[in-house]
């Protein structure tokens, strides 16, 4: 064995590749994965309501994160444009993160209450009616499809298991909160919640 190297032994090739490629996991991924309690301790985040969870899943399913970021960088003009910069503790209930990687449309981190629910509705049904040069697809069907609420209890339970502090009564009432609401209305509830929990934090 000792006279061989990775060019002559498939076992050495496999093991040495795994070892060399894994250093980064140990140095920068794992140390951050074990900091959950520390990050939560500083957080102002509030868990989403059942209806907002349903709306967030519409956001994911339609691929809103493909064109909208939810990450305001700590750069002065960006804070001027998009509001308070994200802090590490802000997204502790974001399973998964929706930071995105492309700003084809504006950042939505602090969107909540910026526009009325009626504006959001008009904009989702026909974006060009309110922003003439908008590139956004129209989402009229969101206001025709109604949520059954059948899976919301399961979703809340899974999120609870991952560490979102939902109470039993919140979970039990979740189906009633979601059932019969259109996807569009749920999405607007979610959008109107964005950034509210951290709005009181004025310090950068």
């Amino acid at each position: 064995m000792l006279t061989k190297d990775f060019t002559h032994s498939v076992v050495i090739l496999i093991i040495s590749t795994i070892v060399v490629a894994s250093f980064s996991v140990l140095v920068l991924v794992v140390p951050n994965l074990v900091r959950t309690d520390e990050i939560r301790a500083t957080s102002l985040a509030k868990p989403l309501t059942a209806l907002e969870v349903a709306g967030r899943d519409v956001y994911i399913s339609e691929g809103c994160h493909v064109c909208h970021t939810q990450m305001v960088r700590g750069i002065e003009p960006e804070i001027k444009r998009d509001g308070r910069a994200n802090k590490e503790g802000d997204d502790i209930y974001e399973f998964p993160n929706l930071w995105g990687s492309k700003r084809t449309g504006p950042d939505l981190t602090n969107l909540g209450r910026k526009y009325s629910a009626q504006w959001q509705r008009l904009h989702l049904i026909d974006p060009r009616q309110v922003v003439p040069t908008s590139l956004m697809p129209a989402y009229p069907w969101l206001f025709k499809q109604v949520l059954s609420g059948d899976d919301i209890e399961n979703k809340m339970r899974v999120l609870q298991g991952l560490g979102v502090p939902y109470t039993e009564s919140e979970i039990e009432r979740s189906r009633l909160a979601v059932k019969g609401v259109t996807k569009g209305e749920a999405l607007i509830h979610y959008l109107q919640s964005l950034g509210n929990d951290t709005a009181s934090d004025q310090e950068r």
Partner: protein
Amino acid sequence: MSPGMELYDVKVVRYFIVAAVAWSIAGMFIGVVLAAQLYWPVLNFDSEYIQFGRLRPLHTSGVIYGFVVNMLMGTSLYIVQRTGQTKLFNQSLSWMVFWGWQLVLFLALVTLPMGYTTSKEYAELEWPIDLLIVLVWVLYAVLFFGTIAKRKVNHIFVANWFFGAFIIVVALIFILNNLAMPVSLMKSYSVFAGAQDAIVQWWWGHNAVGFLLTAGIIGMNYYFIPKLSERPIYSYRLSVIHFWGLVGFYTWAGTHHLVYSSVPVWVQNIGIVMSLILWLPSWAGAFNSAMTLLQNKEKLKTDYIMWFFMSAILYYCLATFEGPLLAIRWFNMVAHNTEWIIGHVHSAALGWVGMSGIATFYYFIPRLWGKTQLWSNRMLKWHFWLAHVGVALYAIALWVAGIGEGYMWLAQQENGSLVYSFVEAMDFKAPWLFVRFFGGACFVTGLLLMAFNLYKTVSLEQEGVADAN
């Protein structure tokens, strides 16, 4: 079938390559549709299934998992046989890998437009499909390493190191990034949240680029470039440096996607520094491949397939220079989230991966079917120029659009107020998004010429026998 071919399992290789050609056209055609939607939003057709948000993951998955993975599986299973002078470890296993992977792609084609997505970039497929991917990938690893193990030559050829690293690292990063709690058959939540999830996500995202679109393609080129140029690899020592440089440094660089975000600053800085270091092994490898081509100047004068490889290497140089540049805070501040990033990705994906793939198809497909020459060299020439005009327009358009909008987002008056609204930046870049659409359309037109040319090549009766070595 040409002599020598009967000693190897080539049928499954042909299937993989045909699937790769089909997915390259389908995946990039969807890309052109997306580019058109960004200029004419009416092309979303108010349709749930083909609106931009749902179509975009189908484009990236189609190109990465359809075109590139099919091509890498096909070429790796061929190269590992030829360089080890042995048949595949197990023939039925190879068919399970082929059909298993096509099933994954079919499920992606159905579920992504229906809105089943995890939202994780380049890992959008939901958990049951992820499990299938892991299963097929393990079978592929057993097949590939099993074939290396039964090789009849002592030395493991360079290409196989890169394929090996591609298989191993993609498996590691895919599994960690996709850890999720299922809610129902087609819905799950990532087990990681927020900033922690973002670190895992970009550790995956950048390594998918590093090991799928880089190491895998390098492995393929380390076999086909010497074959085509009829010269040995320029420097064995450089290929060793290239290999360990990539494996050693690539996995560190992913957090450059999170510069100025809310993840700890030291995590961002590791990503920045490692991205800069990566520049070196990347260019060392590019030099090695370019010199291998340049050893045969006679052939380089006339052979457009040689030139496709040469262009691929030059685009690799561009992309691996642009990458570290974009990782630097000062550039990142302007470029982050803009069209520049899309342009950078496509310089690499069309210029490097695309042209390497095109060159490989032109060289490999005739030989795989026992033909000596292409049906039309003129059409090859047309393809060469269409592809180059396409990538150049694409890259230039998005440099202008990206740097422009990045500047406009940040520009402030003297009193600190913003100069431009978001809509003004959007209106500024609109014509450049049209140029990008046009460039992409040129590139796909070139692919159609290639498919037609290769179809004619394979189906026509030809004199003589190909040198399939």
